[in-house]
């Protein structure tokens, strides 16, 4: 009797799994559809784009659209400019978040509770509110208008409370015995951090790096307010200008869009195998 019910439950479980799989495939197709549509539009000429009914596949794959687009859309310059911001900012954010995360996870010091609450509390503060005073500080105070510094330096200041918290949680999952063994061998805290903790928390650091990358990638507003001249434009600003200058050349706009998709996708594919693991292992329970 009991055996039977377990068997039927197993069978039921299997059916649910099959249904789940079908639903997942359908939803995944739905999620990919916009990306496919944008990509397929980037390979059509404008006459084909404005055809009714539209087709799902281009009649000819016009990769020449990309060459044509590059004539008006200096993608490589924009990419170089964007990377000039992203690379130092991601490194600075990851390193300083690791430093702070280690201090919060492992070290004893006066005022720890207070500083930690300040840090966690800042997660709840909308960064948009601070935009204007920061703008005044960077431009009127430090005269850094039309430079990348206001977009880079903030990331050298801890890389954001969430990232510090993520690193701290991850370090807490590493057995303390490892540190203690190293202490007995005469290693100081800095050596423990660089030689034991950092290698052990690589997945978390990659997650933090990717999150920072995405944040900067998407931060159109700050890029617009700090950067004024076209030789310093990032991909985001470049795209917004490009759209204005070519009102209905949709195939060129879609080609530019697809080009801008690429760096993020590449970065994600490199880091993705660590990604969910990184967040799972931190035991995101607060």
């Amino acid at each position, binding site marked *: 009797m009991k055996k039977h019910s377990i068997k039927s439950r197993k069978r039921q479980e299997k059916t649910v799994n099959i249904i*789940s*799989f079908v*639903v997942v495939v359908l*939803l995944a197709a739905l*999620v990919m*559809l*916009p*990306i496919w549509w*944008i990509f397929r539009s980037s390979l059509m000429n404008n006459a084909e*784009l*404005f055809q*009714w*009914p*539209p087709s799902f596949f281009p009649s000819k794959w016009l990769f020449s659209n990309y060459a044509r687009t590059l004539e008006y859309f200096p993608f490589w310059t924009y990419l170089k400019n964007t990377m000039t911001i992203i690379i130092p900012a991601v490194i600075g954010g990851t390193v*300083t978040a690791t*430093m*702070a995360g280690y*201090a919060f996870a492992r070290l*004893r*010091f*006066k005022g720890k509770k207070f*500083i930690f609450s300040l*840090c966690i509390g800042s*997660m*709840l503060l909308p*960064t*948009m*509110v*601070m*935009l*204007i*005073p920061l703008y005044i500080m960077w431009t009127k105070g430090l005269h850094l208008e039309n430079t990348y510094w206001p977009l880079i330096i903030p990331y*050298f200041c*801890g890389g954001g409370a969430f990232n*510090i918290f993520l690193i701290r949680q991850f370090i807490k999952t590493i057995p303390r015995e490892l540190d203690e063994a190293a202490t007995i061998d005469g290693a*100081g*805290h800095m050596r423990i*951090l660089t030689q034991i903790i950092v290698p052990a928390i690589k997945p978390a650091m990659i997650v933090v790096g990717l999150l920072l990358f*995405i944040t900067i*990638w*998407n931060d*159109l*507003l700050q890029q617009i307010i700090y950067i004024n001249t076209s030789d310093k434009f990032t991909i*985001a600003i470049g*795209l917004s200008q490009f759209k204005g200058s070519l009102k209905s050349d949709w195939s060129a*706009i879609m080609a530019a*869009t697809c080009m*801008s*998709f690429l760096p*993020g*996708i590449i970065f*994600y*594919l490199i880091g*993705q195998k660590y990604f*969910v693991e990184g*967040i799972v292992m931190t*035991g*995101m*329970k*607060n």
Partner: protein
Amino acid sequence: MIILKRKPKIRNELLRKEGRTAYLLLIPAFIGLVFITYLPLCAVFGLSLFKWEGIGAPAWAGMANYVRLFTKDPYFFDSIKATVLYALVTVAGGMVWSLVIALLLNRKIPARGFFRAVFYLPYVLPAMAVYLGWNWLYETNYGLFNFLLSQIGVHKAMFIGSSKGVIPSLAVIAVWLSGNLIVIFLAGLQNVPRIYHEAAEIDGANSWQRFWHVTIPSMSPIIFYNLLMSLIVNMQVVTPALALTNGGPGNSSCFMSYLMYLYAFRNSKISYACAIAFIFFILIGIFTVILFATSKSWIFYEAGDDK
């Protein structure tokens, strides 16, 4: 004996060293907290009490900026309405969508890693490019969505071109982009202790009962976290207005952040924009407090969990 006597001294010395290392390591984060978080927050309130347009000396204005906002400003109430509406629709849609996807991906299905990557993918695309791309998908005559609608016999919709359609249309994009919520939900699901499920199974609970009485309660802290964070993030919405709608049609997508940007950076009304920022801060604060206040009644904490 000698060792015992010397021990406290060594211990103190070690503790002092530990403290010094900690402060050194925390310098960057502390500078960040003071100079780019808490001081600017105070400065916003301070500036909002003056009249200042970016040049010359600020003149004391008291509450004049606030009075003007609430009595004369033609955009202010529209912007609150647009912001709150957008945040509510997006948060509700994003939470349901990402929880469903996470639950599906948590089952034993083939190619899980691949599908996880697919659902996460939109999140890594640059926002500006995403909005440009969707602008074409929403195009009235030749866009994808009106094509799909025409296939099921629905008349053409204006989407972002109509004041009723713009917020839901932008919310669809935001839900599509909510891969980060999925990842955090997945992480939470994988941390639900297996023994709870096994115990429930032995007691004869079916999968629906297990979902409702085991999965959801164990997930409640993470549901709360996602709810809170996505509310705070989505209240600050500005990119769709910058990239796509310019606040229109009418003022229907003139979000508070966008209004603040327009006043501060297009019209140099800096102190007036600070008043908007401060009201904005209070508004988000109110939502946060409400969420925290209700959370006690529905969040289930594991006993002995001190994280």
